[in-house]
């Protein structure tokens, strides 16, 4: 009996437990765009194609803006998509074509080589960060790494424009500065998203492969020599 009284006394305190009103509770209950295609009454089959396409385009554009101004955002990581990385990869590979083509094959990278380097490299880095104990999911990591190629693609466009004006020392210095700046930006943007998901004493181990990845892509852009 004494024990029953004791236990009911323990529960007395629970009745005035409540969440105080000044702790903000926030969240986002919107679902990622891809899952809305599947079921639950609201189907996208009935809406105009323009709406569907524009919604996805807006999501992609939103992520581009996030890469331009990198700040940690959980919503960005959650709504991953691979359209942006595909677009950037194809653009970069196309722009790297048209280099000096000799009769020997020692020239710039082929289209397939750029593709393989980017996707295979992203895959290896994602596997590496997951094996080291990261909490980010597989496709989220691929998404972040792909989107952060954007500064390097912009640098490629700038380099091609600069090369139209000639390929002397001045143009090389300009291209070097542009590529270095965009490489730094890419690495900084991707670590802003990725570094949080790693255990504290392994951050450098995860950041280094990302650095190497963007360095190699930057090198490919810098050594692009147009056919003369």
């Amino acid at each position, binding site marked *: 009996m004494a024990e029953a009284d004791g236990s009911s006394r323990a529960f007395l305190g629970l009745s005035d437990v409540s969440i105080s009103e000044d702790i903000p509770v926030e969240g986002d209950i919107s679902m990622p765009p891809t899952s809305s295609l599947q079921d639950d009454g609201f189907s996208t089959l009935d809406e105009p194609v323009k709406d569907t396409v524009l919604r996805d385009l807006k999501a992609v554009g939103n992520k581009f803006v996030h890469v331009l101004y990198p700040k940690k955002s959980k919503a960005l990581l959650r709504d991953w998509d691979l359209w942006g990385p595909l677009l950037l990869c194809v653009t970069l590979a196309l722009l790297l074509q048209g*280099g000096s083509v*000799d009769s020997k094959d020692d020239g710039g990278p082929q289209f397939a080589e750029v593709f393989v380097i980017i996707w295979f490299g992203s895959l290896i880095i994602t596997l*590496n960060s997951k094996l080291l104990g990261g909490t980010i999911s597989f496709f989220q990591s691929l998404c972040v790494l792909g989107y952060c190629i954007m500064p390097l693609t912009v640098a490629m466009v700038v380099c091609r424009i600069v090369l139209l004006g000639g390929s002397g020392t001045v143009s090389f210095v300009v291209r070097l500065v542009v590529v270095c700046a965009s490489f730094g930006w890419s690495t900084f943007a991707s670590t802003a998203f990725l570094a949080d998901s790693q255990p504290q*004493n*392994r951050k450098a*181990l995860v950041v*280094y492969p990302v650095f190497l990845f963007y360095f190699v892509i930057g*090198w490919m852009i810098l050594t692009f020599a147009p056919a003369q």
Partner: protein
Amino acid sequence: MANTKDPFEFQEFEEAESLLEETRDATTINIDDVNEFRNQRRPGGDEVEEDLLANDDKAELLSGQRKNAPFWTFDYYQKFFDVDTCQVRSRIIGSVLPWRGKNFIELYVRRNPDLYGPFWICATLVFAIAICGNLSKFLVNLGSPNYKYTAEFGKVTIAATAIYSYAWLVPLALWGFLLWRNSKVMNLVTYSFMEIVCAYGYSLSIYIPAVVLWIIPSEGLRWFSVVLALCLSGSVLLLTFWPAIKDDHIRVSIAFMSTIVVLNVLLAVGFKAYFFSSESPHQQTNNSSVVTLVQSKPHS
């Protein structure tokens, strides 16, 4: 004491010291004690063998605990990535500083071989060789008007094949050989495959700064850095593998050691000759024009 406590109240367990006060004879195990015990028997000579024996037992026990996941699962590979940044850094430094009596595997890798170091050091070396080779060729040919700069991406594939086969096939061969010798002659020290891969992977790390130095088009500097890198990495490898083979016949030991050295030398000199040849194409076109002149002479 427990039965007077309210069952719904959180029970705090007392500190180890206060629990010990009640039963002074209870056996305790302190993790630091184990390391102190091993460290006390450190300096070389015969004590090293006993130490290695003891560690062998521990290694066998611990490696038995780890082999639970089958090799096609993700978890199997996760245990090879159980390293921190400071551990990787100390392993890299340890692989370039040979110290008599200190064995790289014994000191750094034992019981925790990792795949992170070998894989990423090899990847870095592949790209470093391709990029620095390209740069050095550009610098050598800077003055000549005939030279047209190409990026030479085909060389990345060649470098990758060479480096990854050195870092993975040679350890496989060495491990198989050691396994075979172990069935014939009882050795005190055995290395697992992953530990040998670790030793070879980390030993390649000295070549990264060496390759960067080779950009400077000075033959003397290049040969000096080749020899230095060879000596450092070769001696670390020799010191590592000597305890594993020294109990065997003297001829087998010497053949084994010299194979390690020869492969190392071949790798370094091969890289230098293939990626960093200091012949400019100006000289090369001269040679080919001389050859065509000689060939056309009989006709005239």
